[in-house]
């Protein structure tokens, strides 16, 4: 069974008019639509004001003459002011909602050559948004003849059907993808597919984006690029605001994120807008979101859902519309199961989740990233440095080998290239330079891998491996002992007395508890966490 074509359109209360025989000599858009040699309209849904009922009937009769195959259904639709956007849109939307579209057997055409310009605009919008699952159809008198038949043009708003437009989009998409990749011509199929998806989401959605992946995989860089892309596309005009949640611990976290009113707590000497306010109209990148405290999580959820929140000490909520990008190297689902991450917040940000691969999973991309880092070094230091051919081959061979674990991912690569470039004599990286650098890298990776056991069970339970890796061994050993002492004491004051037993005697005021609290805060820890972890064990 062939599909049939159904046209929907307004009666042209001026152009479709005519009663005498000479009406056949004039172009009348609605009649012309049904009069085409190569277009068979099986049914016409003719919308008209009740006042034009007799004209509608006349046009229907004329269509019956020129097109016996066309059934005309008249619909009296009264719009108070056909030039008022809201009225016309509502009337047409009501019609569309009430209409039984049978898209499996019928093709729909929305006729836009009749009705007011406002009606045209509304029909366009409703068709573009697929309220009318249709293509547009335009009728026009034929140039240079007086043929009443005229011409029709069907306009499909599905832009992907037009080759030249599609090519344009493709070009733009390639530019977008290139922006996201910082212009690095990456070859890893998995990564490129991922960036393609991110491009799609970044340009088409304002929902939160969650970037997962190990430290140094480029989450922060990618978040910046997404913000750049959104700015290019005029989808945001605000700032890119970035914060690592692991650094937001204790009393300051709330205020840093959500702001405070002057005097809301000791030390709140002036108003502070907070990062969420600063990101209004822009992009907020919360790295290590898994480290956010539960109170902050609750407030963030409200800010995401309501676009409003209450700064500390304020009596009125403030609003902020920002695009959230969250980063994490943890398994957030596990944090939810442990009760350390709110399930509702997780659900809210776990919509567009992308896992960035580790550098060792992208051996193809090492070379372009090496070049990128060299260029960056040249920009930074105004010094162009190149590998010798042999040195380059040796470095790349090592970098792609199983021996290279790249545990710090791009952070390691960037540091490695910076070292090589800085140490290179005469702007040329030699084989010897590379050999020494390979030794350095291997040593550092051996250490990181060997480290966790030496850091002791207390620290391993409190801090993530990445956080641990960022702490000097010197500090780690000290911290491990401090925690042991804390856990053997009843209160923070007891622990302070024990730990500062010598220096406290030389001080006029001995606030050991405060010293200890500040020491712990340096590592993102506090008394209750340190001791609670011990209780759970």
């Amino acid at each position, binding site marked *: 069974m062939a599909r049939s074509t159904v046209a929907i359109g307004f009666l042209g209360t001026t152009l479709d008019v005519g009663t005498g025989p000479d009406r056949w000599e004039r172009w009348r858009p609605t009649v012309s639509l049904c009069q085409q*040699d190569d277009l068979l309209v099986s049914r016409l849904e003719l919308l008209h004001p009740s006042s034009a009922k007799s004209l509608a009937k006349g046009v229907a009769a004329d269509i019956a003459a020129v097109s016996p195959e066309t059934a005309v259904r008249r619909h009296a639709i009264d719009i108070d002011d056909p030039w008022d956007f809201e009225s016309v849109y509502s009337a047409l939307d009501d019609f569309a909602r009430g209409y039984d579209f049978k898209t499996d057997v019928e093709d729909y055409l929305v006729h836009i050559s009749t009705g007011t310009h406002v009606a045209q605009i509304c029909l366009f919008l409703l068709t573009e948004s697929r309220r009318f699952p249709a293509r547009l159809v335009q009728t026009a008198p034929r140039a240079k003849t007086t043929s009443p038949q005229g011409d029709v043009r069907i306009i499909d708003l599905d832009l992907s059907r037009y080759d030249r437009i599609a090519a344009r989009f493709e070009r733009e998409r390639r530019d977008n993808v290139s922006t996201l990749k910082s212009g690095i011509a990456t070859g890893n199929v998995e990564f490129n597919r991922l960036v393609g998806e991110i491009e799609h989401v970044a340009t088409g959605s304002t929902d939160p984006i969650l970037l997962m992946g190990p430290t140094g995989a480029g989450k922060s860089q990618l978040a910046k690029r997404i913000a750049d892309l959104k700015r290019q596309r005029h989808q945001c005009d605000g700032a890119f605001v970035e914060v690592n949640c692991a650094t937001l611990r204790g009393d300051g976290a709330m205020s840093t994120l959500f702001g405070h009113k002057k005097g809301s707590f000791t030390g709140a000497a002036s108003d502070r807008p907070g990062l969420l306010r600063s990101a209004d109209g822009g992009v907020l990148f919360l790295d290590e979101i898994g480290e956010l405290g539960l109170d902050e999580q609750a407030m963030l959820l409200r800010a995401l859902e309501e676009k409003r929140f209450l700064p500390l000490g304020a009596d009125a909520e403030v609003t902020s519309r920002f695009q959230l990008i969250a980063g994490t190297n943890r398994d957030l689902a596990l944090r939810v199961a442990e009760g350390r991450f709110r399930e509702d917040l997780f659900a809210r940000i776990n919509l567009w989740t992308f896992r960035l691969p580790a550098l060792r999973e992208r051996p193809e991309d090492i070379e372009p990233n090496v070049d990128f880092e060299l260029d960056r070094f040249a920009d930074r230091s105004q010094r162009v440095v190149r590998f010798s051919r042999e040195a380059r081959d040796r470095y790349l061979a090592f970098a792609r080998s199983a021996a290279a674990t790249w545990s710090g991912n791009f952070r390691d690569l960037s540091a490695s290239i910076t070292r090589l470039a800085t140490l290179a004599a005469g702007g040329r990286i030699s084989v010897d330079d590379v050999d020494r650098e390979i030794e350095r890298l291997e040593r550092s990776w051996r250490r990181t891998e060997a480290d966790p056991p030496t850091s002791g069970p207390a620290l391993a339970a409190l801090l993530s491996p990445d956080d641990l890796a960022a702490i000097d061994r010197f500090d780690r050993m000290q911290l491990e002992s401090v925690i042991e002492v804390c856990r053997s004491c009843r209160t923070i004051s007891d622990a302070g007395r024990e730990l500062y037993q010598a220096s406290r005697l030389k001080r006029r005021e001995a606030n050991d508890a405060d010293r200890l609290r500040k020491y712990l805060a340096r590592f993102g820890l506090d008394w209750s966490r340190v001791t609670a972890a011990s209780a759970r064990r």
Partner: protein
Amino acid sequence: MPPLHINGSTGEGGGQMLRSSLALSMALGVPFRITGIRANREKPGLMRQHLTALQAAIAISSARAEGTAVGSREVTFAPGPVRGGSYRFAVGTAGSVTLVLQAILPALLVADEPSEVVIEGGTHARSAPTFEFLQHALVPLLARLGGAIDVRLEKHGFYPAGGGRVAVSVSPAATMSPLMIERRGEVRSTRAVSIVSKLPFDVARRELEAVRSRLGWSFDTRNARVVDDAPCPGNALLLYIESEGGTDIFGVIGERQKSSERVAAEACAEVESYLESDAPIGPHLADQLMVPCAIAAAKGAGESSFVTQPLSSHSTTNSEIVAAFLGRAPTIESRGAKSVRWSIR
């Protein structure tokens, strides 16, 4: 039986190739597949009026068909037995009633029962035979092949409103006879008729005046026929030539922005060309006769032949369709520069 393949992209007149194929297919019970329909046109594929002819053919022969949509480039058609009876068809966009008949009339002539067919649409349409041509030139010759046909104009229909109506009664032929028209003989009478609908009478007078000055055909007010049954304005100029060999009619449809004098000049040029040759059958009549003659030959009537003016590319294509369905080509012999003899056995 695998369907006969007709390549619609070669030759002239995509619409006529389809209509001739339909008529031959139904009358001979041969299925066909036509591809590349109107392939080289600006708007390729089936137009609405072709679709109407196709649907009429499906209706009278209970055919199975594929590709029955506007714009279709390929049609497959497998007819059942042609059934007489009562039919009513309507042609949109003032498409021609006579063109629909071109597809179904030859088949109805060989049906099992008589038919009453009413077709609504254009009776005087551009690029199509006029009703008068059908009635006075073609039908008398078809009757000589066998059977009886009566056509009546109930209402005139012009472009663009249409609204015309033609009723046709067909009594099928028990056996078919050959047709043989070799000589025109003496011209017995000539006559010009101008039909005007909802237009000033002057349109008719100027056309008739122009015919008189060019061909010397006299006229009086009876030669102008004012009709009032069509919904829209329209005009047709018909030039009749009745000779010993039969009647032929040359018609031109008046259009907006085309002067009465232009209409008359076009019709007169056709007449002059006809009269320059000694052929009894004009080019349009030849085009309409080929398929019925071929059907008669296929039904055992023996050889039919007629002498006509040199074949247009349109007629050559039509001859090729006939050859495809019959499995033998018509013979086309030159009779000097101005006429050819077309025959099929």
